[in-house]
């Protein structure tokens, strides 16, 4: 397997020094080139799991291997896209995308590479713009181009379209699908949107909350493009909804309890 997540646990101590389990006994294998969504309600630790794979967060126990190598720190073999574009505002679009290439490439080569990926996200005309001159959706596309420019084997996406409006999101779904078909990256895609995960992924990992565990591993074998297969998509959605309903009820009742006790 390409990505191996073995018995990963993550806990921390809260303000009153009680241990809180964020992730419990997470085991997951991902094949090379697979598009895998990690789906769950807020607080299920799905972003923490992605952050651990990125090397930005340490596990409490367990380990992660990619292509046989253990993950201990961030690396250019894993490109990360966050919910906010996280572009550097003092750099132009071109300079942002060449940021990770500065050390290993000549300026001209770096710019050629960057341009290739900016064209892939249809922003080839915006290379000399600054981030504040772009819309939220355009910024996020630059962030995707920036992650791709390092030519990583794996693309980690943490609710990348969560802050965008519905129309922009739908358009970017199409672009991401094309990019994935074209580049054959392995993608781990964190989302709380059921329909988004069904639309995009080969496999959906459904997570439950408190502690964060894997509830279900669902294979989506609807042929692409999936626009014409509304019925099959709805069936899977109903199926996932049943699982998540319990989890969401759990979160809601806990929040009510918390509200009542304060």
């Amino acid at each position: 397997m390409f990505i191996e997540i073995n018995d990963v646990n993550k806990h921390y101590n809260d303000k009153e020094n009680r241990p809180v389990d964020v992730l419990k006994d997470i085991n997951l294998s991902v094949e090379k080139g697979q598009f895998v969504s990690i789906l769950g309600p807020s607080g299920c630790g799905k972003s923490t799991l992605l952050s651990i794979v990125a090397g930005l967060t340490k596990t409490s126990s367990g380990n992660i291997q990619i292509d046989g190598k253990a993950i201990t720190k961030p690396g250019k073999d894993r490109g990360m896209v966050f919910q906010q574009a996280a572009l550097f505002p003092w750099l132009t679009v071109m300079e942002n995308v060449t940021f990770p290439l500065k050390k290993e490439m000549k300026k001209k080569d770096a710019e050629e590479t960057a341009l290739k990926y900016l064209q892939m996200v249809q922003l080839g005309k915006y290379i000399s713009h600054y981030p504040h001159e772009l819309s939220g959706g355009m910024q996020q596309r630059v962030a995707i181009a920036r992650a791709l420019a390092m030519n990583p084997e794996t693309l980690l996406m943490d609710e990348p379209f969560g802050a965008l409006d519905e129309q922009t999101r739908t358009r970017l779904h199409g672009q991401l699908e094309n990019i994935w078909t074209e580049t054959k990256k392995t993608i781990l895609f964190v989302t709380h949107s059921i329909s988004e995960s069904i639309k995009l992924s080969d496999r959906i990992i459904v997570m439950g909350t408190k502690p964060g565990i894997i509830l279900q591993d669902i294979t989506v074998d609807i042929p692409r493009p999936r626009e014409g297969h509304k019925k099959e998509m709805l069936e899977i959605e109903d199926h996932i909804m049943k699982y998540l309903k319990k989890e969401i009820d759990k979160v809601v009742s806990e929040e009510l309890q918390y509200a009542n006790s304060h």
Partner: protein
Amino acid sequence: MQTAIKRIIFFAAIIAFWEIGSRLELWHPLIFPSLSSVFSALVEGFQDKTLIYDLIASFKRLAVGLTISLIIGTLIGILLGKSKTADETLGAVILALQSVPSIVWLPIAIMWFGLNEKAVIFVTILGGTFVMALNMRTGIKNVSPLYIKAAQTMGATGIDLFTRVIFPASIPYVVTGSRLAWAFAWRALMAGELLSTGPGLGYTLRYASDFGRMDIVIGVMIIIGAIGMIVDQFIFQRIEKSVIKKWGLES
């Protein structure tokens, strides 16, 4: 447009009151000279070049003092921003020193350097250093963790991470720090010059006062105020505005 019109009317009223009051001798010219005599004193000062020499001398000291204070302030600020221990120890001292008016340092400076150029520059440096240091520190501490995470996933670590991400991300605070450092240094310089030897705007101010030349006193005060306002409004506030816009900090 509204504000501009209000301002013009306001200033016209003050100027009219000033000139008419002087002509009607509502007050003695030694207490407050007329606008026209202040104006002719300024023209005279520029024609015989004394005011030009004063301006050059003051700006030379300011350039040296402010440059040194920005460099030292930036370095101290980076240290305080990056090292928790330095922040907890040296940081407390800097915070205390910040509240000491810099002219208070002049007696020490005179003991160390004598009543000369160096003492005045020393006071000017102290005027700008601490406020620059504290702003630089805040800037480094306020860098969005998201930028740092993003940079780390792109392979940036250590000094590379600092020079390419953390420092540029704190530029808005560098600009604000520089603006305040300039304002503090300018005030410190004028205070220092009042008590030292010439040439210099502050020195001429005291010299004119000693000889009862109130027209020159008011004229030089207008110059000092005008320079302060022009540099602040037309240089620093403009840079600050464009940086805030570009860095996406507009609320």
